[in-house]
């Protein structure tokens, strides 16, 4: 479904992604793992074209994304949930969802506000509250719900468990499992190995913008030297 081939991304002169390649198949949940600064968020942004790769290609369902403006990438069926949440703090929960609303898409689950409130019950209670008055966990749910309003076929989740309470993390894991059962494909980035193992089918490990591992969690389990070298546990 998504084919990232040898992309190089930069911030100014800093070379962040170095010939990174990986793929995500339809219906799969893939976790990008790695330490702070390994390039996880930049990978997400490079797929979304918020950071433009200087070389390489990102093919989504047979379509080249590199060079497209971000809104066209979103329209093509990618939903991006940023790590720093970026809820519209002056807009209410309902208004935040409205910003994300896009028409129904073939081959992707269709979401309504009512369904999303079922998935994230906390948001239903706070529908008329402004984004800035939500807790961190609620904001995280809101950004995911907001992105789902665009009926994406592939969800990019940047560090969904970061900075939220453990009990919410569990809820988040259940939500992601539920999204997968609805037929959504998910690429998420994580530092939390346990969370990633709980929700993802496969792990891709980054270090200094290069891929160091790509395989199942069982394989990763059997090679502790990789975990010790590239993940902070």
């Amino acid at each position, binding site marked *: 479904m998504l084919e990232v081939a040898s992309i190089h991304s930069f911030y100014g002169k800093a070379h962040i992604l170095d010939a990174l390649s990986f793929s995500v198949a339809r219906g799969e949940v893939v976790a990008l793992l790695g330490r702070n600064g390994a390039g996880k968020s930049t990978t997400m942004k490079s797929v979304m074209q918020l950071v433009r790769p200087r070389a390489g290609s990102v093919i989504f369902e047979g379509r080249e994304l590199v060079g497209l403006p971000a809104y066209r990438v979103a329209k093509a069926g990618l939903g991006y949930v940023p790590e720093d949440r970026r809820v519209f703090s002056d807009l209410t929960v309902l208004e935040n969802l409205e910003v994300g609303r896009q028409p129904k898409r073939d081959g992707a689950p269709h979401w309504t506000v009512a369904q999303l409130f079922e998935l994230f019950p906390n948001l239903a209670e706070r529908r008329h509250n402004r984004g800035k008055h939500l807790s961190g966990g609620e904001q995280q749910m809101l950004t995911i719900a907001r992105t789902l309003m*665009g009926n994406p076929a592939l969800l990019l989740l940047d560090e969904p468990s970061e900075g939220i309470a453990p009990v919410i993390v569990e809820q988040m894991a259940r939500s992601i499992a539920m999204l997968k059962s609805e037929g959504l494909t998910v690429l998420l980035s994580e530092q939390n190995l346990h969370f990633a193992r709980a929700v993802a089918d496969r792990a891709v490990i980054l270090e200094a913008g290069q891929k160091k591992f790509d395989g199942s969690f069982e394989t990763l389990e059997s090679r502790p030297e990789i975990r010790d070298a590239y993940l902070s546990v």
Partner: protein
Amino acid sequence: MAFLFALFLTGLANAAALFLVASGLSLIFGVTRIVNFAHGSFYMLGAFIGVTLMELLPGAVGFWGAILLTGLAVGLIGALVEIVVLRRIYRAPELFQLVATFGVILVIQDLALMIWGAEDRLGPRAPGLRGVWRIFGEPVPKFDIVLIAITPVILLALWYLITRTRLGILVRAATQDREMVGALGVNQAWLFTGVFALGSALAGWGGALQLPKGGANLLMDFNIIGAVFVVVVIGGMGSLPGAFIAAVLISVLNAFGVAFLPESTLVLMFVVMAAVLILRPYGLLGREETAGEHGQVGAPETPIRPYGPRGVALTVALLVLLAALPAFAEPFLLTLVVDITVFALFAASLHFILGTGGMVSFGHAAFFGGGAYAAALLVYHSETPMELAFLCAPLAAGVLALGIGWFCIRLSGVYFAMLTLAFSQLVWSLAFQWRSVTRGDDGLINIWPADWLNAPMPYYYLTLALGVGGILTLRHIIHAPFGYALRAGRDSPRQAEAMGINVGRVQLVAFALAGAMAGLAGGLFVFSKGSVFPTELEITKSFDALIVVFLGGVKTLAGGVVGASFMTSVEHWLTRLEYWRLVLGLVIIAVVILMPEGIVGTLKRLAGRLRPSTEEAPR
């Protein structure tokens, strides 16, 4: 009492047009972050198009139909400007768009001159609303009452649009975080165009609605823009109810001012603005601007370095050439070089606080004109010797800058810019309306240099010595510890504070120093021309300097000087043409679009591309 109430109603009626124009500007700024200087031009276009349509369409239906159509037409023109000019430069350095909108002002001025001619047009009376109604015995024009009734309706309609529709929700979301809105699948380009068109249409409606009370003329664009900025800033950037309250406040105050203190009308609104900003730095209903809130991460600054041997050699060669110039050049060329040097010093002083200090001042003319006026007033009223009066130019301007800066440095970004604009307008209106001292727009004349300098050649050398000396001093300071502190305060005020730099004080000293240098330029100016008029304090003068700095390149040290030479030369040749504003406007727009790093920045990049040497070219 009845008279006072009638005055109050007049003020309310005047608020209608002002609110329309201000709400448009506020809306555009909120979403696109562009301070649209050309907004007054859309107001002017509204007036002219309105007059034309009203002449074509008969009766009451024609009158109101003409107003409606005018807004739509101006909205279309706004959309065109956005698509052709602004859309290409959203990624350009912050505030660079200002320069483009200034180019648009010039183009629209000359187009209006071509189409409608130079004569003022009187607005037609509204059919069926020609007379007056008596309220408590005082006559109040019927049209005024209609305007008073319409304004809240417009406010409500806008409020509904912004708070209750999808477009409004997207607009508010984009005001906070444009990039995220794009990542959610919204094409920002069209959202921006739509908002720009709507804002322009509002300005157009304002221009058409005020016709029965005023008319259409070619000065309307600059005349309203000052008031509109004041309204938007008092109300709080981006707040519609704020703009409404401020428009009413300013208009009512103005109505009373006209009746009781006619000399103070211009000063009054800027005094109110300064007072509001000092008490509530972000306007009555505005919110604090925090850096990075909008998801924009600027490109990292390329550090500026002192010139290498080649740069030094080039500068020395240029100086030698300039020093030798009187030996073979004609007098008019000497005058041109004097003009360029004066302007270059003025621009370099703005560049010093803008580029190095990150303080974008919209009112730098206050110090140029302030210095010029200080010297001229001394000569004119007390026949002070030229040498002494000349020394007072930078001194007075520096003290003025110290005073104004003390208020302004509490603010940053657009609010800083607006407060400096307000203060400079204050100084301008003093020069313009305090006729007993300044002779108003008759200006102060016969301000000539002392005998030993009163010839082209000595004055040329004086200008060259002081102008070049001033510019080199500023350059030197940029590379001195004080310059480092200033740059640290620009890039990261908090970290600078944490390192023990008193950012506020560093900025204030820099602001005063820049003011003094501008005053020095003003002093050189007044004795070279022999006169000074309030135009030297006008917004346009401040804008000229801004344009020059941006054109030359903010991030390069030579930017101000190169930009000033470019502008003065181009203007010198262009003003011979009938429609020189059109050409100059197009040149400015072209430079902005084609050379987003400014002239110097672009030349540097091209040079770097030609020879990929040891020094990596700035991206």
